[in-house]
């Protein structure tokens, strides 16, 4: 899919995703080695966006499995369409049982869920397994077969193997430790907060209306906030929100009043707001 790491950066940038060298290298390797990519990092640094961008670059269909507590086989893998099977049985009254049986367990009655969808068919696909850490431990076991061999076993149909391997991205917020077995099968990528220069480019790309000097100041303030010991550090998504807010307010430069009034866009806890205001020498809120 990609010829070099620079190629990855360039093509991701075309879709509006500016990748750090670490991200580009790992995506390149995931493609080259054919391994799933496990992406961890704080909320709002673009983990899910990465999968979308890769799908766009590869002109592939994005198949998404959103994990949550209680997601199970029938939501992740496949399910038989019982209602339709019942209809089929009652419609074919005069048939022998053998005929009916082979018929109702055919593909027509199979409801494919994301994991099965991703490995069937010949068109290129990107499989995004979002917030893997929210799923129960049992689901991880389910993923192991899919991710290491790219095959799914349906007892009535046999084993379905992928003719074309999807590009797999798993994301996690590390709210639960994923099992070692799952980690072993994946390339690991930790997306942290970007460095100043990259973040400036991101802000410029997403909020083109903001002038150069203000962009620089915005990124510096966010950098200073990240160096503080806060409960929830502002992420790239918050930086962009803040830049948009400033643009909407028509603020030409940063000053105390503007920062104080808009700090809530960046920080989501009252403790943090107070602490940051004190450290930045803002007047009491």
């Amino acid at each position: 899919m990609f010829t070099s790491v620079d190629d990855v950066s360039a093509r991701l940038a075309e879709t509006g995703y500016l990748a750090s060298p670490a991200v580009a290298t790992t995506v390149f390797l995931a493609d080259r080695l054919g391994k799933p990519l496990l992406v961890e990092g704080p909320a709002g640094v673009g983990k899910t966006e990465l999968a979308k961008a890769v799908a766009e670059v590869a002109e592939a269909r994005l198949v998404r499995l959103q994990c949550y507590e209680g997601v199970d086989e029938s939501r992740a893998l496949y399910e038989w369409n019982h209602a339709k099977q019942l209809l089929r049985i009652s419609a074919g009254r005069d048939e022998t049982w053998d005929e009916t049986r082979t018929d109702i367990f055919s593909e027509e009655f199979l409801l494919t869920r994301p994991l099965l969808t991703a490995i069937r068919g010949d068109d290129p696909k990107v499989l995004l397994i979002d917030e893997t850490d929210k799923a129960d431990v049992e689901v991880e076991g389910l993923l192991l077969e899919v991710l290491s061999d790219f095959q799914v076993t349906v007892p009535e149909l046999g084993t379905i193997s992928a003719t074309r391997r999807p590009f797999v991205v798993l994301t996690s917020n590390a709210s639960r430790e994923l099992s070692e077995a799952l980690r072993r099968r994946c390339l690991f990528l930790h997306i942290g907060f970007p460095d100043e220069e990259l973040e400036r480019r991101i802000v410029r790309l997403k909020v083109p209306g903001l002038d150069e000097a203000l962009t620089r100041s915005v990124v510096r303030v966010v950098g200073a906030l990240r160096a503080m010991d806060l409960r929830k550090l502002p992420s790239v998504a918050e930086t962009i929100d803040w830049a948009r807010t400033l643009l909407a307010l028509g603020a030409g430069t940063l000053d105390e009043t503007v920062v104080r009034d808009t700090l809530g866009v960046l920080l989501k806890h009252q403790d943090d707001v107070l602490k940051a205001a004190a450290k930045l020498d803002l007047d009491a809120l």
Partner: protein
Amino acid sequence: MTTPAGAGVTERLTSFVAALRAHGVRIGTGETVDAAQAVEALGLADRELLREGLAATLLHGPGQRTVFDPVFDLYFPRGVGGPEQRTAGREDLRHRLADALTADDRAMLARLAVEAVDGFGGYGSSPGSDGWSSYQTLERLRPQTLFARVRDNVRGQGGSSGFTDRLLEDEIRRRIDAFRALVAAEARRRVAERRGRDEIARRAVAPTADRLDFLFAGKAQLAELRRTVSPLARKLATRLAARRRRASRGSIDLRRTLRGSLSTGGVPMRPVLRRRRPVRPELVLLCDVSGSVSGFSDFTMLLVQALHDQFSKVRVFAFVNRIDEVTQLLEHGTADPEGLGARIEAEATLTGYHGSSDYGMALGEFAERYGDAVGPRTTVFVLGDARTNMNDPNLPAVRQIAGQARRVYWLNPEQRSRWGTGDSAAPDYAELVEMHECRTARQLSALVARLLPV
């Protein structure tokens, strides 16, 4: 397996993996093969690409990165030997360093670090014959004294004005710290050239935060540890929840059983049990907060506080030689974990006539004043090194607490072989209650996951 550069690279890679393993990073053969493939795909031309490629294939968690980077610098060094040109002199170097700090030029800073170690770091009969020292380099160069100059330079160039000017000083401090880290890495590399890479990788690279001994952790390392509290607490909470789920037995949940029976044509083959409403246990923590073990106690208190919604009641007591309840302080303490120790010291009565710890007195006072805090549903954790300063260990008090409580565990941050030496009463206490060695955050999390009641 073949790589473009042949056997040398393979050997370098495997010894690199061995060094990481020695630091507790679990890497299987499969990952090593992946790493070799990554080297093949990326080539050796670009060092930073190689670094990211190896990190992606070999590591499994963000915490391992702090070990990975220094070890990588040793095995895949930026250069070999000294810089091409010797440095002209201290003032010249400081001048160029100030310029690089002003411009925040990372590449230049890295080059200057190389020059600095070469010029000022060597010690021994002829400079550099015995080794290289980052401490000596930084002592002679004193980059922190450039602070004012850099600040004025930046302001002079108009690089900072208006609101963001107030951020400048911290930013410059961070740049100087980054330079110090570069010097340390460079000195390590030069030493490794002389003494052998494997040995330096094993000895000179600091362990990851969770494998750090509580009793020997410095201030910065404790701060780093504190940052791991909330992720660790989340991890433990899910583990506890899983244990609770497995432990549940109950009556049949009709609605979910019928829903499940649809897949078997309405015949309920698999009964689903109603989840039992969890009875949340109570927890009492007795923490020695005297100087020697305060790092350990602080960390554990914060961890337990972060886990508080797993329990119906958590009460925390701190002691040195008198005991006082600090539960309230801790609740407010989550916003400012650094100040926790100081606040406990200021607001709670922990010492009587003298300032050294006395387990016997503190435990006796607890049994007397707060005896009603311990009931049949309470699990008690005692945190401390059991060093009584030759005072009476007051075993009857411990026996009384153990009799009232559901379980009593003692977590001792000292290594097991030192229990009972000197003034340690650990063996006496260990006969009455279960005592566990708990020297690192890793051990602590394993113990907490196993011992906490569900």
